């Protein structure tokens, strides 16, 4: 059962990833990115990270991608004009990509020690209770720092994006 689920969502993720790269219009690549995030959420569930899966959907798909879709809609920029891509990228692009994936695959297969096989539910570490406990004890400082970071980001965004009222 797990393998079937894994394959379904892995393929969805890869297809959406490809779609993101190949699509001309940003809105379609945005939606394909949402597809990738959804499938990743499911994979997180498979790996026992429930809270993270929910967070992924809420934060990534629900908030960040909405921003992206918003900006795309607001700017209403058309699809990319063809041409202008360096000849090197045209020719060497794909083979290099495959080479990179092959190398990473090789590295993963050989270097890493015995990896477990993924059984759904065999590691239930990712519950909200567990993450909450760890987050507010061991990782309290990073948590506070990131909250400050988010505050700064909000201020920055507001300042940058508001219309000049002058």
């Amino acid at each position, binding site marked *: 059962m797990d393998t079937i689920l894994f394959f379904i969502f892995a393929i969805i993720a890869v297809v959406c990833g490809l779609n993101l790269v190949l699509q001309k219009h940003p809105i379609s690549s945005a939606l394909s990115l949402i597809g990738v995030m959804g499938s990743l959420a499911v994979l997180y569930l498979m790996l026992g990270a429930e809270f993270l899966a929910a967070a992924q959907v809420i934060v990534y798909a629900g908030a960040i991608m909405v921003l992206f879709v918003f900006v795309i809609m607001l700017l209403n920029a058309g699809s990319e004009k063809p041409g202008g891509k*360096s000849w090197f*990228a045209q020719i060497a692009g794909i083979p290099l990509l495959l080479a*990179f994936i092959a190398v990473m695959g090789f*590295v993963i297969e050989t*270097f*890493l020690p015995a990896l477990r096989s993924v059984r759904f539910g065999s590691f239930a570490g990712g519950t909200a209770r567990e993450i909450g406990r760890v987050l507010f004890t061991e990782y309290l400082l990073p948590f506070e720092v990131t909250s400050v970071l988010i505050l700064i980001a909000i201020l920055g965004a507001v300042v940058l994006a508001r219309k000049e009222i002058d």
Partner: protein
Amino acid sequence: MNLWLIPLFPLLGFLINGIWGRRFSKALVNLFAVGSVVASFAYVLWVLSALYPLTTAHTETYFTWIHSGSLQIGFDLTVDRLTAIMLLIITGVGLLIHIYSAGYMEHEGGYHRFFSFLNLFMFFMLLLVLASNFLLLFVGWEGVGLCSYLLIGFYFGEDFANNAGTKAFVVNRIGDFGFLLGMLLIVVHFGTLDFATIASAVASMPVEASAGVLTAITLLLFVGATGKSAQIPLFVWLPDAMAGPTPVSALIHAATMVTAGVYMIARAAFLYGHTPITLHVVALIGLFTAVMAATIGMTQNDIKRVYAYSTVSQLGYMFLGIGVGAYSDGIFHVMTHAFFKALLFLGAGSIIHGIGGEQDLRRMGGLRKYMPITFITLLAASLAISGFPGFSGFFSKDAILSAAYDYAPWMYWVGVITAGITAFYVFRAFFLAFFGDYRGHHHPHESPWVMTLPLIVLAVFSVGGGFLNVPNWLAPMFPNVEHGSPLLMWISAAVSILGIVIAYYIYILKPGTAESIAAATGPVYKLIDHKYYVDEIYGALIVRPVEAFSRTVLWKGADIAAIDGGVDGLGHRLRGIGAIFRQMQSGSIRNYATWVVLGSLLVLFVLGLAGGGR
């Protein structure tokens, strides 16, 4: 006994005239300038009378001037019989020349400047003579060089004066360079510069048959002497030094400064005694300088140049005397030469003063009617210099020639011939100036008494100087060996008289013969007339190559190619490298992205290699 007062008086004269001279009247400047020399002369007489027998040197040390490590140099002055003679010459002749120049410089600009420099010269000369170690002597040595430069270049408005001054200074410096090296070698070898200590150290050393350290020291010191006393290689500056006012030529380039070289070697006799090779070199150079200068003197038309070349020639005789070991005869000739050469120059000065600055013999003549005193005093001087029996020149020159005969007979015969030539060219100038009719277009007139009085005093000394028996006065310092048979004396006297008769014959009886001889001898005459092309040779051998070398190699090569090339080149190359990296800032985000990815892959690769995955 505070000997330091002797040089102090001229120094004070220099300072006073130098600082406030501009505001003083001529009389006041005279008062200080001449007054300081009079005081110094009087004090010298008083000191010498106090120390009369003076068989041994009287040294006074005042303070330690330099103390670095083992080298200890003190500011200490010495007086011994040799110094006594030099002091008397310097202050005596100096005083006469100061009085003379008061009249001569009457209507010249920069009156106070002239006298302050003259006093400064006196101070340095006295310091040089009184010094009891090489370094203090060297201070005086440099000081007089400086003053000669200042005084030669007195008419700094004129180009020839400036060039002559610079030439004199540069040539002197070259000589001083040799002197400095000699001193350094002494310090290295003996560890001190004091005459007494060196003398005691050298006494125990063997006489150097072959070339050793002592020979090197003495030779280097001799190089300094040739520079200062205008001998063969470095004499070129003296004839041009005539660009200065005549009293300067008289005092510095006749009586005192040029004899400094001879005095220095006499002072360092304890060194030269041990190096026969150097003495032989000194003798040879002295002889050749004498011969060469005398021949050039024959063809000169400027009266001061004639006397300048005669100075070079007489200095050659002094070095000959020293070279053959007759130190006392050399010094004796220094004294007599001081008298008659100063007189010759002052006489020439009064002639030039009389005929409005004209110096060319061809535009003089028949002046005995207009300047009787100058005529008589100049006659006495000419007789003295040509060694006419009974006059001072005869005694000192003859002593040197007989000593030369003992040393090497051929030297005697060359010396005698040169004496004859000397007599010839001196009287040539004398007859051209005073006999025949006046060829100039000025109204010649006799100089005032303030100029003629010193002439008379000097004339007396030129005639009587020979009887001051200097050699036996210096006996305790230099062993005086009786030498030469009377026959040699008569031969030299006869030759000099012959020279006078020939000159009389050519220039008085048959005025046209000079030109005919010149035409007849043709190339030889031209060679001599052009002073053996010495200046041209130096120019070609040294000046032009050095100039060319500095222009091509130093300027173009080192400066432009190496330094500029290096610096600008570096800057250029950096810009080149900068240009390469500038390409990276192309502004295209895709380039940046590619660089980012490549960079991260590289880091990944390195980490993979290094880390190797735990």
